[in-house]
């Protein structure tokens, strides 16, 4: 799973498979961080609070 775990080998299988995995995890974490971060910023800057429509 990690380059420092026992089974890790620097080969194509690992690049592709685990690359895909880390890519997905990365997108999801970035997305979540963005949402939470933006919400906090919105709150701090007082933009939030309204019951705006979000659909």
């Amino acid at each position: 799973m990690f380059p420092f775990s026992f089974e890790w080998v620097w080969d194509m299988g690992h690049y592709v498979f685990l690359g895909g995995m880390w890519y997905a995890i990365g997108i999801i974490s970035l997305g979540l961080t963005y949402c939470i971060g933006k919400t906090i910023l919105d709150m701090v800057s007082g933009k939030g609070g309204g019951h705006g429509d979000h659909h």
Partner: protein
Amino acid sequence: MKENHSNDKANKFGMVIDLDKCTGCGACMVACMSENNVPFKKDESKKLDSITWMHLYRLTNKKPFPDTEVCYLPRPCMHCEGAHGHPPCVSVCPATATDYDKKTGIVSQIYTRCFGCRYCMGACPYHARYFNWWDPVWPEGMENYLSPNVSPRMRGVVEKCSLCFHRYQLAMDKAYHEGRKELEEHEYQSSCTQACPAGAITFGDLNNPHHQVHKMVKPSKHGGKPTATNAFRLLERLGTNPKIYYLSSKEWVRRLGDNYLPEEKTGEIGNHQPKGHH
């Protein structure tokens, strides 16, 4: 994986089992159980949850009396090589609890790594893999005979024949101690081979032309298909490329070694390239 074990020569340990000699006496099964700390339960008559690394199949020609014939077939783990070292079970294991050792040709099973998903059992067409449905329990006192060379398994993991790999480890220990790096043919023999009263099992390095096993079946360079008459392997057509060879003088026995379409002749099929992927 880097496979260059410096200047080590690759062995390919395997067996040749002469079905004409095998008497079905069961000694190989028990030799294996007692060598490898295989547990037992009060009821072992449900054969599908009974752990027997070495299993004896009873084959019949299905002809009515008095033309009936019966033949026993001992079945250890086939230690398939597949194509380029990819046996059916190894590549499916998600947690790398089993691997194919290119130095010895042995398919391992690491009980402490296995977490019991049983995918390998589904992958093995020989039913050579067994699951520990129960905690192993020895009646009081009997744990005294357990061998320290093979660790007893816990409930919830898969186990199978290791070709008595610990015997290789111990033999290598001795060799190292004596400053050698190679083993003599007799130094590493599996427990079943050693016990078989009929001498039906021969064990050795299929890569070594001086070893009995090689002389008996003359494995081809490509895929290891036996070139000796009467020799066959189980389910060769699947491309599992097993290292257990069988000898039988009986056509019906040899034909039961693989699946054949009605019009196909025994032994003529099977030059397919071993299957396998990744």
